[in-house]
């Protein structure tokens, strides 16, 4: 199978970015949108074709082969034997991510046609979307960790550009700066991890077992020489991997680097759907999954630390989400919580016999399954939220309520996505979340029950949101003035498409998800563990019933009584447990005041002062000796004479 066309998957969106970026000013909005959408449509078709070809090809030893169609040495370091490559690697997880990214990106492109209609900067928006799509695709197709880092930074830049799309508004600018700085700060850890890893293993390549098939004369990435790392004390690889995980924690919004994601909701809603729900924020999970063979063989305890960090993040985010009134914030915290679920799933994998045992590494497969399903239903939720915001012109729940009368399609799709995220069969979320819970119970029943509890909270706050928007207390006065209307087809068709995927993907594939993506590569047929399934579904149904009882009717007396009974808890949860304020305090009052200001004083007065002094000296000297240039020829001749005499003297002596 010739995969040489795969470079188009990266090249086309990049060309669309360049074209729309450079000539966008002279294109009409329609043309720019059409170009962007057509390019992404082509990329989506190519991705589906690649996936079809890849997953229907024969397995070798029961494993899908890792294929590398392109791999160029970009920057060789001859002394150390290290080199930075750029290439494309096809692997079950990267091909799966291709499908996710291209589908969600295409849906967002189509949806933005309607949502961003009439906005200033429409062409710039599509250019940035194209750049983002290219960067994310490059990240998942990376052949080595350095290429992944390169595209990692590029998606960070795109996130900055798109969050700050409404750059004339203060909150958007502040939010984009915050996102970029927090993720950049985390990437410092990532870089140090890469450097330690590269130094000790002599290679950046992902080809850990030297079994990749290099097509078309692609330069082979040398498999990591792990013996030096092992010999160099057992903590080298875990340290390097954990530092890399810190970078992933920043990008995937793990506590305490999650602060940027709720503020990132200042960007346009389709951007939130694409970047901050379905694709960029899963980059951290993808990174751990990529390096998973190393994690599970050499750093299993560190992996368990990752699981506990994920569990805490999930709990924190779920608690905060229960008290938010801005619908996009609820969805943002929900995203943080779900990504933490994925991290937990990766973290609970057990090392014994795991590389030949799919059952012990069930978490790997569960995490990636959840990544896939979450991307679909979270994108649906965000796009529905966009429709609602478009109709009501506000993010706050107080302007909503009773929307089921005005927006039927949005209502149904939102409901299905909520059911999926709560883990109700037969929707996709049930299958993936169930596997995560099974894996968690395998590792530790305490963690299993904690995650089940968080899943219950997930169901609760999602249905609180659902009832708050579509049923509950209707803001009749507001709805009289601005009658909410259903969105145009260009915005509802993507919703319907993503919802169809959410409904069917759980049971429609021939063979389950595990037959395509699993820890060892061998097919793994997922059986539903009845105990866990029944427990989780019943707990989810109880939570949904609780939310219905509290929030579904025209007034919420129970909610008000709970709020009155525990005002501090509500206030703390509403203010996100004041983590943002702690960051503000530390940065402004401590770092800026006591470290930055003295350094700035030093720079301005001493360093600059020295150069000012030099300039002043030159000026003063020149003022004194300017009389030498008098314009009188005879004086010049005299000076000339003296010079000649001195030269003669020097020659004689």
């Amino acid at each position, binding site marked *: 199978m010739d995969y040489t066309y795969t470079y188009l998957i990266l090249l086309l969106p990049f060309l669309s970015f360049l074209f729309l970026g450079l000539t966008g000013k002279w294109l009409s909005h329609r043309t720019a949108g059409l170009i962007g959408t057509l390019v992404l449509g082509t990329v989506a078709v190519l991705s589906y074709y690649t996936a079809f070809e890849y997953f229907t090809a024969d397995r070798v030893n029961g494993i899908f082969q890792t294929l590398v169609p392109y791999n160029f040495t970009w920057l060789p370091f001859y002394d150390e034997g290290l080199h930075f490559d750029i290439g494309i690697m096809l692997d079950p997880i990267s091909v799966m991510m291709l499908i996710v990214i291209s589908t969600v990106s295409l849906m967002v492109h189509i949806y933005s046609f309607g949502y961003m209609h009439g906005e200033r900067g429409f062409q710039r928006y599509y250019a940035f979307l194209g750049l983002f799509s290219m960067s994310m695709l490059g990240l998942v197709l990376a052949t080595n960790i350095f290429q992944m880092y390169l595209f990692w930074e590029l998606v960070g830049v795109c996130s900055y550009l798109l969050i700050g799309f409404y750059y004339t508004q203060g909150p958007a600018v502040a939010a984009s700066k915050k996102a970029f700085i927090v993720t950049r700060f985390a990437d410092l850890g990532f870089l140090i991890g890469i450097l330690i890893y590269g130094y000790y293993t002599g290679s950046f390549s992902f080809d850990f077992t030297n079994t990749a098939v290099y097509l078309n004369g692609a330069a082979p990435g040398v498999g990591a020489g792990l013996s030096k790392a092992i010999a160099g004390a057992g903590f080298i690889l875990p340290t390097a991997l954990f530092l890399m995980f810190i970078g992933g924690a920043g990008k995937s919004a793990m506590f305490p680097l999650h602060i940027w994601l709720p503020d990132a909701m200042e960007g346009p809603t389709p951007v939130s759907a694409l970047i901050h729900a379905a694709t960029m924020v899963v980059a951290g999970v993808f990174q751990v999954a990529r390096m998973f063979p190393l994690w599970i063989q050499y750093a299993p305890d560190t992996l368990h630390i990752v699981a506990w960090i994920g569990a805490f993040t999930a709990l924190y985010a779920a608690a905060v989400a229960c008290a938010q009134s801005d619908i996009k914030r609820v969805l943002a915290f929900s995203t943080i919580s779900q990504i933490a679920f994925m991290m937990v799933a990766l973290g609970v994998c057990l090392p014994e016999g795991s590389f030949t045992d799919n059952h012990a590494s069930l978490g790997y497969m569960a995490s990636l399954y959840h990544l896939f399903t979450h991307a679909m239903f979270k994108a649906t939720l965000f796009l529905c939220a966009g429709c609602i915001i478009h109709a009501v012109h506000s993010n706050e729940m107080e302007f909503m309520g009773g929307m089921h009368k005005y927006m039927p399609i949005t209502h149904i799709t939102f409901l299905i996505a909520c059911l999926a995220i709560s883990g109700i069969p037969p929707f996709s979320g049930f299958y993936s979340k169930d596997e995560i819970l099974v894996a968690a119970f395998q590792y530790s029943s305490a963690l299993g029950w904690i995650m089940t509890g968080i899943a219950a909270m997930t169901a609760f706050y999602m249905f609180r949101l659902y009832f708050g928007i579509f049923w509950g207390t209707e803001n009749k006065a507001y709805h009289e003035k601005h009658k909410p209307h259903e969105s145009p087809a260009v915005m509802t068709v993507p919703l319907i498409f993503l919802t169809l995927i959410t409904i069917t993907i759980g049971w429609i594939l021939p063979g389950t998800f595990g037959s395509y993506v699993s820890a060892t590569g061998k097919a793994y047929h997922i059986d539903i563990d009845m105990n866990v399934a029944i427990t989780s579904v019943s707990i989810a149904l109880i939570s949904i019933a609780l939310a219905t009882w509290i929030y579904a009717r025209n007034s919420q007396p129970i909610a008000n009584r709970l709020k009155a009974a525990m005002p501090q808890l509500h206030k703390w949860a509403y203010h996100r447990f004041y983590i943002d304020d702690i960051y503000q305090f530390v940065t402004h009052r401590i770092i800026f005041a006591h470290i930055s200001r003295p350094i700035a004083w030093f720079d301005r007065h001493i360093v600059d002062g020295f150069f000012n002094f030099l300039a002043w000296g030159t000026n003063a000297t020149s003022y004194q000796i*300017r*009389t030498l*240039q*008098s*314009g*009188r*020829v*005879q004086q010049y*001749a005299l000076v000339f*004479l003296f010079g000649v005499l001195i030269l003669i003297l020097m020659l004689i002596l």
Partner: protein
Amino acid sequence: MLFIGIYGFLTRRNTLAILISIELMLNAADINFAAFNRLLFPTGQEGYFFTLFSIAISAAETAVAIAVMINIYRNLKNNFVDTLDKLKW
């Protein structure tokens, strides 16, 4: 003679006097060449040839200098070099 010429060049105000000083310096150099030729190379005449060249060149250069002087007089109405001080700081 050379040093007399240098002294004259540096101290006289009249441009014509400066030109005379230049001629003095050149003639001094010519006398030097002729004298050394007679002293050191009785059979050769290279020194005399160079002297002839130098006289010819000094004549040409004097002509050019006179032209410059005339222009200076036309612009400044006087012949004193201390008035030529425009190219200063």
